[in-house]
């Protein structure tokens, strides 16, 4: 163990002077091949050298990113972020989790407040103009949650004339406005703030990605997800625009973990506790 650490240290200190040699050392040692393989000057090498990473995630989404009592978020997004950090040789305790909400993810990346965003972050063209996406690592779809006692709303087709709560400025809000012109969209600040108005009868339903709704329904027998998803929401990992090296590297990591079972393991220990385990999606190297 000590020997391995010494070797790793020499490898690190050698890196600055002799770019070629340390990579070989690392490979032979087999200690942490991914971290040692990183190209000089790349974002990955910088992060690995710093030994820490700032990852933006949600703090209010059960199953994906929900802040626990110790302040550290838990969920599938957090697992994916942890795996990527691990591939850079960064330990889970050296990850700084930054809360990002739907409305501020692009600007957090652009202003370099986070290195990555793994936050139920739908890949779309307008966002690609400001940031880049690796992934997708999961395909969600927008769906409807209502009270179990509600007889009128059985699925997306019954939304005409209904009041539907969602988050102000989110993609689900934009989808509702576009697909259901006869629906009154009621925006709140966070998805969990929609629950009280739903139970008080101030809104008829909540709409966002099925996985988020499933988290609420899993915690509360009064709530039910109704109907099939009506959109495709590929969740990607947000990073600085045009950092293609970093993007390709994350895509490689994702394909690796789709194959070796770590992705399935991460899913089953988090969202998989209430949702069926899907097939991993195909990475989109646009």
């Amino acid at each position, binding site marked *: 163990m000590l020997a391995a650490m010494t070797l790793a240290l020499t490898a690190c200190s050698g890196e600055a002077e002799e770019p070629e040699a340390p990579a070989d050392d690392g490979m032979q040692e087999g200690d942490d091949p991914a971290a040692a393989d990183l190209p000089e000057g790349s974002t990955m090498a910088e992060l690995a050298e710093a030994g820490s990473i700032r990852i933006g995630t949600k703090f209010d989404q059960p199953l994906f990113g929900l802040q626990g009592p110790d302040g550290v978020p838990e969920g599938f997004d957090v697992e994916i972020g942890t795996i990527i950090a691990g591939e850079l040789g960064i330990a889970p305790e050296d990850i700084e989790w930054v809360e990002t909400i739907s*409305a501020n993810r*692009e*600007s957090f990346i652009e202003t370099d407040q986070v290195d990555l965003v793994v936050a139920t972050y739908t890949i779309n063209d*307008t*966002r690609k*103009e*400001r940031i880049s996406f690796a992934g997708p690592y999961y395909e969600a779809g927008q769906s409807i949650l209502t009270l179990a006692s509600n007889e009128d709303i059985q699925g997306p087709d019954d939304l005409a004339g209904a009041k539907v*709560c969602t988050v*102000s*400025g*989110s*993609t689900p*809000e*934009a989808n509702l*406005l576009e697909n259901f012109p006869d629906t009154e*969209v*009621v*925006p*709140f*600040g966070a998805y969990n*703030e929609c629950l*009280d*108005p739903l139970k*008080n*009868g*101030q*809104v008829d339903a909540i709409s966002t990605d099925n996985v988020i709704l499933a988290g609420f329904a899993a915690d509360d027998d009064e709530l039910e997800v109704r109907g099939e998803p009506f959109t495709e929401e590929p969740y990607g990992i947000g990073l600085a625009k045009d950092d293609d090296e970093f993007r390709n590297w994350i895509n490689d990591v994702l394909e690796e973990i789709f194959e070796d079972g770590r992705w399935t393991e991460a899913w089953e220990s988090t969202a998989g506790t209430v949702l069926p385990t899907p097939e991993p999606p195909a990475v989109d190297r646009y």
Partner: protein
Amino acid sequence: MDLISENLPALFAGFRLTLQLAVYSGVLALALGLLLAAMRVSPLRPLSLFSAAYVELLRNTPLTLVFFFMYFVAPQFGVPAFSFLWVAVIALSLYTAAFVSEALRSGINSVGVGQAEAARAIGLTFGQTLSQVILPQAVRSVIPPLINVLIALTKNTSVAAGFGLVELIGVGRRLSTANAGDPWVWVGVAVFYLLITIPAGLLAGVVERKVAFAR
């Protein structure tokens, strides 16, 4: 720039709701604030204590928290769920009334105590003293702080964006999402806020000059 002109109808709808919130809440807050100020200076101890407690509680609580109480706590105690607009108007009015009351009280205190004593000496009741002697003089010194309170109220309506209302900020968020976070959206939103607050400031200047008198 084109973005603003293309989305004028949406921005205008948000502007209307913001104006509605500001005007409804402003009227209610002025009425409630006047009542609270009258209670505060009244000779009846319980009334003045109640008013003082109310003002201290609301003035020292973040507005967002007042909204949270209205939406998530009050319904648990059987308060019926109104429309989102009226819940927001009530929250804004309750909060702003505390500041109105303080502005009025400082105005009332600025009127010499001899005025009140003289009014009582000629047999006016407390209500008559307040409405016919003290307040007409107090108005002159409370116009600037009251307009400040109302301008703050106009800006505070933006808190309602997180509570089911698509006012200017809510419209801004929608347009921002639809246009990849184009910063011009927020320039447009700011201009519409200024359309309310700058005329309010100018109006304050005019009213102040109208009621001014040489001491």
